[in-house]
């Protein structure tokens, strides 16, 4: 999997254009990309896409333009397959064009431990 571009970010979720879906990617059901541990709000994609699990994050193949929302769990119900903008919690919604993307979470560094850990949003 080759990274082609740094596409965009919504909060601590970061999106990158890639050339293909890795052969070892495991297809999964649509699920939120990240959940805020403090508020319970979620970053989730709505629309026509397939989602795969890979090391470090997910690969998403958007078959058409999809909408990346930051919203509540409740708003997501019945809205996974429709490219709609849902009620905004903190971060603005964004359109994600047709293509293949890697999405992961911004990493945090702990200077007391000397290594990385996930951002707590």
């Amino acid at each position: 999997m080759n990274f082609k571009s740094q596409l965009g970010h919504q909060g601590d979720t970061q999106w990158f254009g890639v050339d293909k879906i890795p052969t070892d990617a495991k297809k999964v059901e649509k699920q939120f990309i990240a959940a805020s541990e403090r508020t319970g709000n979620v970053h989730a994609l709505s629309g026509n896409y397939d989602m795969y699990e890979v090391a470090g994050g997910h690969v998403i193949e958007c078959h058409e333009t999809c909408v990346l929302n930051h919203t509540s769990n409740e708003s997501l119900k019945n809205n996974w397959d429709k490219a709609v903008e849902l009620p905004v919690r903190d971060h603005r919604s964004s359109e994600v064009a047709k293509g293949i993307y890697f999405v992961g979470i911004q990493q945090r560094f702990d200077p007391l431990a000397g290594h990385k850990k996930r951002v707590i949003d």
Partner: protein
Amino acid sequence: MSEQTEQTQIKTLDDLTPEIKARIPMWKDKCTVDLYSGKEYAEHKREDTVAYMNYVYKLCNRTAPLVIVANTLSEYRRYFNIIFNEKINGEFDKLVTSFMDGTKSDEQVAEKALEIEARVKSLAFNEEDSFFKENKETILDSPRYHWISITSEYSRVYLTWYKFIKDEFNLPCSKAEELDTLYDMVFKASIAKVFVCESITLVLRMPSRIHRNDIGLHNTQDALGAIQYPGEALHYINGRKMPDWVFEKYFGKTLQFSDFVNETDEDVKAGIITLIKDNEGNQGLMKFLNAKLIDEKVIEHKNGHKETVKLYKTKEKYSMLQDHNGNSNVPYAWTYMVCPSTGTEYLIDTSAAFDNVMDALKFHRPEGVPLSLEYTWQSFTN
């Protein structure tokens, strides 16, 4: 060799089914939730502690002791000295000796224990008294405890594991009657420490509140302590004991940078850092540590969004910090950015190895993203 019956069959990890595994949190919660929240302390009845100790003594073929219950750490220390310190326990010793001569029923002992406990509380032993203040180093003993697996703060853990294994795997146990009884009584008994003798036992109750995080005992939200007794606080941050002065000064708003610099214990220094960060965020910490700007860049992203990003470091180096290359004795470092959606200013801890803010920002991209990929957002920045 005879066939093993189902009952005597040795259980293995294969018998730990997903259903049994799913019930482990329930067992753990029974052990800890009410203890940590303070409900156990609030609902405690002295007679439950007495009943438990009587049962323990019975298991040892001993008659019921006088059970004295201390509600706080300072009470335990005071009672310990009144009861067991030969320099000052003359009056108490006479009380107990005269009573325990001859056979007494459990009820007589329990009733006398209440009377003696009241007497212990009223004895003229006030640590504020000038005599004791002047002489306490020579007169007062540090309290001691006896470690017995079924009368300590961990007893509930051992007994819960026993009960879990026995009941969930349906195993026979020749001591089931005794251990089941102890399990049924241990939470209400709420015993943290004991000092046991033939005729008398001193018990310290479990704390009135406990705060933990994933690492260990931890409370940075107030000065009440990670372990609390009424009027008493034991401070811990990420499982490490912290001196009282750190919390007293911080919450009393008198903590100075010089306090931090002059502290020689690195764990205490790390605790101070965590205390400030947990309450004031990285902004507060930077202000406290007097950080300086190392690098600044205005990025014009390909999507037209313009942002200013910065790299800060403290002027001082700290031996307990490491950069991402494993070097210690480095400064604190942060990248600064503003969320385009919310306007929130973020200071994200970064490695002190960077002197260039762009290198630091690339470092924080998700795992797997190559460093060679240019740091510029092409589409959305929210």
